[in-house]
């Protein structure tokens, strides 16, 4: 019963497609972090796949990015599942734990390009159950974007390298009328900054002690969380920013309201469109206790549904999407860091604006931090618990230790229930 609609549409589209080509098979591909230009690039790569495999037709479904999580979950729950889906890192645990995804290990074993992937690609692919349920197409590593014009106006020469310098810089910039040091992300997606500041205070990115209890209540993490809360409370971030999400901080940055954001390389797309190359710079994320820095690393990739009827064809599609030419075209469009060891020398990444990230990757004191996305409860924690309680802290309704206590309780429970 649950499968009937899926079958019906497949049969229908097969029937439609077979009138065009002699024999046909239809693969359904869902794109979730959609933008118009990106969809066009995807169509181009898929076209090359269809040209090489004339008996396969690929139906691309591009979900609007904002509500894509709700939309895709509803589709899957109703049995309307695709063969291949774009999988953001934060969704992976949910779909793997519910048995929706196919392990890619058998395919990776015999794939010619597996050996050319950089080491991080396979590590991140196997974050859950040490099995590759997705093949990443690229990485997002946080770095510090700064506005050179505002820095010059405040008499600052270089980007801050440590937390103390960061606070001092923010103070100087906030002294300019109507300007602020930091574009804080208090609303959706603010979790990365809280974790990065917490780890700065702690000097470590260890989320759990050996007994499975959360480290959030350790003095180090609390010190880090407090540093971020104090930035807002002492007026170094716009008052408005308590509600800001991704698009708001990026707009706040390129409009010159605030001088610094922590962000991923893909923000370059919007920023380079609206700021001249000499108006901003990207520098490695700041360092804290013990001289270490912990920018979060995120990734997206392609996954295969376990109930796909055409698994071999679906793998071929993934292999085309993540093949050397496909992946390069894709990352050129979406601005993620490459999965192939050799691609780091591609002219795209030679551009000075990517230097900040390659400096980070080369620095042994910069530890790309993987948030505990393997926990089933993480997605809810990140999307609901963190904004609500951290906003309470920023607004002075809750203290940092109280917040840390709440977070630790949820994390400990999540970790222990998943043992």
């Amino acid at each position: 019963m649950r499968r009937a609609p899926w079958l019906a549409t497949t049969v229908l589209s097969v029937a439609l497609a077979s009138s065009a080509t002699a024999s046909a098979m239809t693969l359904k591909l869902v794109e979730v972090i959609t933008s118009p230009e990106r969809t066009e690039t995807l169509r181009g790569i898929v076209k090359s796949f269809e040209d090489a495999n004339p008996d396969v037709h690929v139906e691309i479904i591009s979900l609007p990015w904002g509500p894509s999580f709700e939309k895709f979950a509803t589709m899957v729950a109703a049995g309307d599942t695709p063969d291949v889906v774009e999988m953001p890192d934060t969704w992976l645990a949910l779909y793997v734990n519910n048995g929706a995804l196919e392990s890619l290990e058998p395919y990776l074993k015999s794939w010619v390009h597996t050996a050319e992937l950089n080491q991080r690609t396979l590590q991140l692919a196997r974050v859950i159950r040490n099995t590759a349920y997705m093949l990443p197409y690229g990485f997002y590593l946080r770095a510090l974007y700064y506005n050179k014009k505002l820095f010059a106006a405040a008499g600052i020469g270089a980007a801050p390298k440590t937390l103390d310098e960061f606070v001092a810089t923010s103070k100087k910039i906030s002294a300019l009328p109507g300007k602020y040091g930091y574009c804080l992300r208090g609303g959706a997606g603010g979790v990365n900054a809280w974790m990065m500041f917490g780890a700065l205070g702690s000097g470590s990115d260890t989320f759990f002690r050996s007994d499975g209890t959360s480290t959030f209540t350790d003095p180090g993490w609390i010190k880090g969380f407090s540093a971020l809360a104090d930035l807002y409370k002492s007026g170094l971030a716009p008052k408005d920013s308590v509600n800001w999400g991704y698009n708001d901080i990026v707009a706040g940055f390129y409009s010159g309201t605030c001088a610094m954001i922590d962000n991923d390389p893909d923000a370059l797309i919007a920023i380079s469109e609206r700021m001249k190359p000499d108006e901003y710079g990207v520098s490695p994320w700041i360092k804290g206790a013990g001289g270490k820095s912990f920018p979060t690393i995120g990734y997206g990739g392609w996954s295969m549904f376990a109930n796909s009827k055409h698994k071999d064809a679906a793998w071929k599609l993934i292999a085309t999407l993540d093949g050397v030419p496909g992946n390069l075209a894709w990352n050129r469009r979406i601005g993620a860091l490459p999965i192939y060891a050799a691609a780091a020398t591609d002219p795209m990444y030679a551009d000075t604006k990517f230097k900040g990230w390659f400096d980070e990757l080369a620095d042994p004191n910069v530890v790309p931090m993987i948030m505990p996305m393997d926990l089933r409860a993480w997605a809810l924690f990140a999307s609901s618990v963190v904004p609500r309680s951290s906003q309470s802290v920023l607004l002075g309704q809750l203290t940092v230790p109280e917040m840390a206590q709440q977070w630790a309780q949820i994390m400990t429970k999540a970790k222990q229930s998943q043992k």
Partner: protein
Amino acid sequence: MSATGRRLLRLAEPYFYSAPVLLLIVGVMLIPLSVGLSYAFRDIQLLDPFSGGFVGLDHFRELAADASFSAALRHTLVWTIVTVALQFILGLVLALLLNREFPGRRLTQALVFLPWAVPTFLVGLDWAWLFNPVVGPLPSWLFALHVTRDANNLLSDPATALIGPIVAAVWWGIPFFAITALAALQSIPRDLYEAAAIDGAGVFKQFRSITLPLLAPTIIITILLRTVWVANFADLIVVMTNGGPADSSQTVASYVFTAAFRRLDFGYASAIAAVLLLLLFAYGLAILSLRRRLLHRYS
């Protein structure tokens, strides 16, 4: 046709009129609604193939102790009452103003009804811009008029966050009340007023003894429907504040959304929705009996 046949036909007549709507409602809405309501008593985690067991009243027990829920209930009360009251009063005044003949009336009427034509998603976005100190004029104007203490975004202050969506909802919803009231005003036969005028009744007396009683059935049913609808309406809040900051503008409707699509806990979401349904149903019964009493008094 035999007399009994005709009698049967007479008896069946009202059912013919209501059959299409009834079929549609049962088929398209009541079946999914019963399914959705049944989730309240089951453990339904979206995407989890092993969930679905019967849990009795567990969700409701959890709900009784849920502080977020009681806060959301309070916000819903404020949001609904203030929004509907302002929409209604301003809408009625507008309808009365437009019910008089004056030069430029058609143009005015076309203009003031425009807000209703804007999709709610765009309404939320537009007002969020107007309240934003960087791209909107309102903060500096309010500050200059000494309405606010600073030129900040009222959406980011927990004490005032709910005002933003309320203003947007009022702006968007006034035309609805105005049009309904105007249509009802227009269908009051003019000769009733003429007769009253001949009998020597003044304007105010005419309003009280003709306009109000004939308008009352429409007004009451409109208020009832709008209250129910506004209480369930989360679009503007989700777009403008997303329930924040720190849940200060979270209503029951937006809380249902959070429970369903953030927690993916459809069972719990459905239990919240069921409580809202119960409260609104009680309210609806009260309003309908009030309407019936009014109709009896005037007819």
